[in-house]
């Protein structure tokens, strides 16, 4: 199913015009940059997991991000995974909304994030780490893990600042499984900047300003009853993104586990494509 939708997205990408619109380089951390109103971003984000005590896997999310308003961005995700010596399966969907709380630029810019998640226990997209998420969770065979249904609500407070070309962002994450499980907490922190602050006078793909480099740090903070760093996973990840002139952004980030509970390494990739004026085209065609 995820492949079919990926194909459909590719066709949409070919049909609509595109130019660059400034894509955030982070994989886990969010900043206060919103999708431009009426623009649709299509992305495929594979994550290759290299665990110590479980089979290797590829968790993939297909992402559709749409700018509803200048201050409101909505995103829909489809998750799937493939585990070595096991199986490939569709694991569920997510729907997130981000609301920028202040309409002007400040030193710290808060954004409220609310997400509904309907996935099964086999999901390996690792979009964020919360509670006591650990490598053990990834070792359960798919046929067992898929039986667990996770309906979750997730809230984030995103704080983000831009200063002299740098972006520094902090996210505080609270997630609640809608069954009787307690609230789980996590964090993400990241900073990045373009390799060149000035734009070149010639249009080019390999100019320094098209590359962003930075670092992300994210992990779990336990749950309502056991808040803290004990038995939690944490990762540090250098990241690099490259924005091409045709509207495509390519991102790469190796993540390294910092604690015994963490997976040894994750290799994250992303290819996204910005479809500009998608909403305007749709409205025109519906008339």
């Amino acid at each position, binding site marked *: 199913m995820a492949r079919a939708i990926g194909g459909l997205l590719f066709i949409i990408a070919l049909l609509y015009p595109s130019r660059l*619109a400034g894509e955030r380089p982070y994989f886990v951390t969010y900043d206060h940059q919103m999708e431009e109103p009426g623009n649709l971003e299509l992305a495929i984000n594979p994550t290759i997991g290299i665990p110590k005590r479980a089979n290797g896997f590829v968790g993939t999310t297909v992402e559709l991000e749409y700018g509803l308003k*200048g201050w409101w961005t909505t995103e829909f995700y489809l998750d799937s995974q493939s585990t070595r010596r096991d199986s490939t399966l569709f694991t569920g969907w997510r729907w997130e909304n981000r609301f920028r709380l202040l309409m002007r630029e400040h030193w710290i810019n808060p954004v409220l994030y609310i997400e509904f998640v309907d996935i099964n226990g086999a999901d390996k997209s690792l979009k964020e780490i919360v509670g006591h998420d650990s490598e053990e969770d990834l070792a359960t065979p798919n046929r067992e893990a898929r039986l667990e249904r996770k309906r979750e609500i997730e809230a984030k407070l995103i704080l983000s600042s831009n200063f002299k070309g740098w972006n520094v962002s902090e996210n505080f994450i609270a997630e609640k499984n809608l069954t009787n499980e307690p609230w789980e907490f996590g964090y993400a922190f990241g900073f990045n900047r373009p390799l060149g602050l000035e734009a070149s006078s010639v249009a080019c793909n390999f100019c320094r300003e098209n590359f962003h480099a930075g670092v992300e740090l994210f992990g779990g903070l336990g749950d309502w009853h056991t808040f803290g760093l004990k038995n939690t996973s944490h990762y540090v990840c250098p990241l690099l993104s490259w924005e091409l002139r045709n509207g495509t952004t390519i991102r790469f980030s190796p993540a390294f586990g910092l604690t015994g509970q963490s997976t040894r390494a994750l290799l994250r990739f992303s290819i996204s494509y910005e479809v500009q004026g998608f909403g305007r085209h749709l409205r025109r065609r519906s008339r």
Partner: protein
Amino acid sequence: MKRSQVSFIFSALLLITLVAYGAKQSKKEAEPEPLLAHAPARAAKLMNPYANQPKAVLAGKNLYQRYCAQCHGSDGSGRGKAPGPHSSTVQQVAPGILFWYLKNGNLKAGMPAWSSLPDQQLWQLVTFLKATK
């Protein structure tokens, strides 16, 4: 009724409230704020470090085509409510106020904040906008 069902209904209600709030905000947006009306006085005093530099005009033109042309038109004449570089609004306003406006946007009226671009690139954009007559 199971506790999980209660939680799900509560969450759905929360989302509906947020969507309703969004719709209300959209109605408010039917009356757009006057362009550039909220720029602070100190913004007008900001000096453009790239003023009259031909290379900055070219760089600004590239940036304009990349980020702005889809809404403001690639020929400089504007599109719909979005004024182009040729418009009197853009030409009459001080460079510092244009810089402030690009950085902050007008989110309620649909103009994104371009604070993710470094100040240098915003000034290059301003240089291009001011050089386009």
